[in-house]
């Protein structure tokens, strides 16, 4: 179990749905670090990741009513909210403009690698390097960039069925690394 302290998952969910402040503090204290880590792996920049994490927790607070335990664990639900919010951020005009500026800065000062290397050693990202390159690029596009299987099939010019199979195989390998 990922939970410690005074709540089991059912109690925590019940308290959150009752809008109990203590439950939200507990939620933040226990999960913000992991969610921040995932967000940072997607958006790369710490200040952007902070903004996304803020949005994520406010969304959790707003949408906790709609969380359905039948469909999965609370952490899974929050993880997906975090990933979706991060990918929305990646696609925002604001982020893309900043990214262009950042790339110019990185090119000028030659610090492209320096800025982001520490991210490669955390979370799911560190398993990516263990995958074969053709699998890795698919997970990169699907999970960290948010492209659909259809879009990836077009980008990579490979059949949709192949995209799906390769991604699932890659994920099965990933799961072996997790163990």
């Amino acid at each position, binding site marked *: 179990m*990922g939970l410690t302290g005074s709540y089991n998952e059912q109690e925590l969910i019940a308290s959150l749905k*009752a809008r109990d402040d203590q439950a939200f503090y507990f939620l933040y204290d226990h999960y913000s670090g992991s969610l921040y*880590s995932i967000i940072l792996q997607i958006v790369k920049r710490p200040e952007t990741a*902070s903004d996304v994490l803020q949005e994520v927790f406010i969304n959790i607070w707003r949408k906790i009513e709609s969380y359905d335990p039948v469909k999965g*664990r609370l*952490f899974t639900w929050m993880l997906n909210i975090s990933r979706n919010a991060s990918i929305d951020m990646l696609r925002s005009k604001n982020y893309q403009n900043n990214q262009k500026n950042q790339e110019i800065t990185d090119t000028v000062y030659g610090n492209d690698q320096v800025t982001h290397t520490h991210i490669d050693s*955390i979370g799911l990202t560190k398993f990516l390097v263990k995958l074969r390159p053709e699998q890795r690029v698919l997970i990169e596009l699907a999970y960290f960039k948010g492209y659909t299987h259809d879009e990836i099939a077009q980008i990579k010019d490979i059949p949709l069925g192949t995209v799906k199979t390769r991604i699932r195989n890659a*994920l099965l390998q990933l799961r072996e690394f997790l163990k």
Partner: protein
Amino acid sequence: MDVQEYILSGIIESYVLGLTSPEDSAEFDRMCAAHGEIRAARNAFELELEENLLREKLEPPRELKSRIFSEIGMEKNNQPPRISLRTPALVPRVGFARYVAAASLILLGGSVLLNLYLLNQYKKSIAQYKDLVASQSQVASANQSLQTKLGSYENAMSLMNNPQMVKVMMPGLPTSPSPSSMATVYWNSESKDVYLLVTHLPKPLADKQYQLWAIVDGKPVDAGIFDLDEGPSFVKLKTIPKADAFAITLEKKGGSTTPTMEAMYVMGKVTG
């Protein structure tokens, strides 16, 4: 579809990580509802993932927590009251805002006091300014009347100092209604102009006026009527070519052709 094969197809991992298409997700939900093994397998992967990722914490910026909870707190205040009354740890959330609010109040208070002080000073200054304007205009008008008086005195002085002036003193007659009366005629021997300086005559009634007479060969000749001004007055009257004496009578307003002898106040003879 073989359940074991389905479980090992990678659909669970794909679903949990949010990579399935809407159709595949819907199918997975149906399969989960139908097969406890699939639910169990899904739950197992979720737990593995969760335990792994909870070990991968990165500390978000410290101030973010208070930022998030102050925003949640604001939203909560706009919600109907569905929350429990247990509201712990409010202090860190509102601490900074409270300092800002306190500082604002102190600044506002200071500003109000300063404004009151300045307003008071302003009112005082306005009052002082009005006093000054009033006294300045008093001084100016006093100065004006002094200038006028000084002008007439200077005029009188130059007339009296003129060597061609013949001075005829007219004291009050013993038979005068006012024996203490006194007036002086200054008569220019060359231009024959007559100026009268009244030292003292009683104030006449409203329908009366004083009249100066020149006595020529025993007969009175009208030398002009005059009014009494405030203070010693020096007036120019008619030109008299020849005179032995001068006298003043009180006549009806506008003067008379012959003097009223019993109302003769002063008289003086021309000497030299």
